[in-house]
């Protein structure tokens, strides 16, 4: 199932202002519309400061495959929240949820990841 779901899920996602670090949110202003990318294939998790990066590819319903990039909190915030660098491996099939960048296409602020074993991990 490789569908992108865009919906208003504000009731399920508490907007965590602490997660914005020095990116106060203006690059990802619409926090109520959550983009859900099922069947994303992990390329790499870059566990670095000032922001982590999740590189992955995703194929839409028309079969078009494209590379995506997800912004995460910095590694110090991730480790403080119990999210470690072994969260995902290259080749893992996951669901990525997040908020769209206001100008860069295929770029999300990642709010959570559904891992291959079905666990959903919220990210700071």
């Amino acid at each position, binding site marked *: 199932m490789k569908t992108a779901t865009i919906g208003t899920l504000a009731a399920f996602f508490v907007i965590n*202002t*602490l*997660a*914005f*670090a*020095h*990116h*106060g*949110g*203006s*690059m990802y202003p619409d926090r109520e519309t959550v983009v859900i990318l099922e069947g994303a294939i992990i390329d790499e998790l*870059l566990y*670095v*400061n*000032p*922001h982590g*990066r999740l*590189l992955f590819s995703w194929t839409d319903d028309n079969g078009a495959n494209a*590379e995506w*990039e997800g912004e995460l*909190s*910095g*590694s*110090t*915030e991730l*480790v*403080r929240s119990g999210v470690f660098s072994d969260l995902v491996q290259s080749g893992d099939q996951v669901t990525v949820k997040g908020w769209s960048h206001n*100008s*860069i*296409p*295929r*770029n999300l602020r990642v709010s959570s990841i559904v891992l291959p074993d079905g666990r959903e991990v919220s990210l*700071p």
Partner: protein
Amino acid sequence: MKQQFFNNLKNISHSILLITLSILTINGYAQETSLSGAWVMDDRGSWTGLLPTNSAQEVLAAFDPSTGDPSMRCVAPALIRTAESAPPFEIIEQNHQILIIYESFNVVRRVNMDGRKAPEWLPLSPVGYSVGTWQGDELVIETTHLTPHLLNDDGFPFDGGSDARIIEKYKVTGDRLEVEFSVEDPTNLQGEMATRIFTYDRLPDAMFFHYHCDPLDATGWRLPTTENPLRDLLQWLELRPSIPE
């Protein structure tokens, strides 16, 4: 004789108890009002009076967040954006200075409390030169000698230099710290001042980490993808630091 001995012992015990209670009370009050300790962001508030001049509007319009934010090259994002970071910070009060140590970008600020003024030759920097004074139970810090930087991640410019300064007011109430930032920058602000209030929670037993930030990691990511890949590539090449041979 025996009764008098016990009466004396009782009086001494009461005195010790009173002294102990007094010390605990004083310590408790000092703890409640002390800036010293670790703090973590609770509420970032929002700007009031952040009205750009015409020249600032031009800068804002031209700002490209994918390439124009120096912090993405591991350059510390100056006072206010460091203070709004998610990682905690620590305040250490000394007689001659107050140290503010942010985990974010390993920024260390020294607030001079002994009246020393900045020498004329002092270079500008992201943390500038800070002088603090106590006004009642409020710490007021004036910072000058700041380099140009961004007030927001949308690219709102701060000019730094001799015309611009930042005033901070710190007040502790129990385990809450309120910090009011006021910015003076006639080059970029229409009004006299823009203000924003951050609120922090005390963080007992805080663990701090070293903030490792490598520009090669920070800029060596996948190319920013916009509708103009050639421009993206050129911008990326320009930003990427030179690699020693």
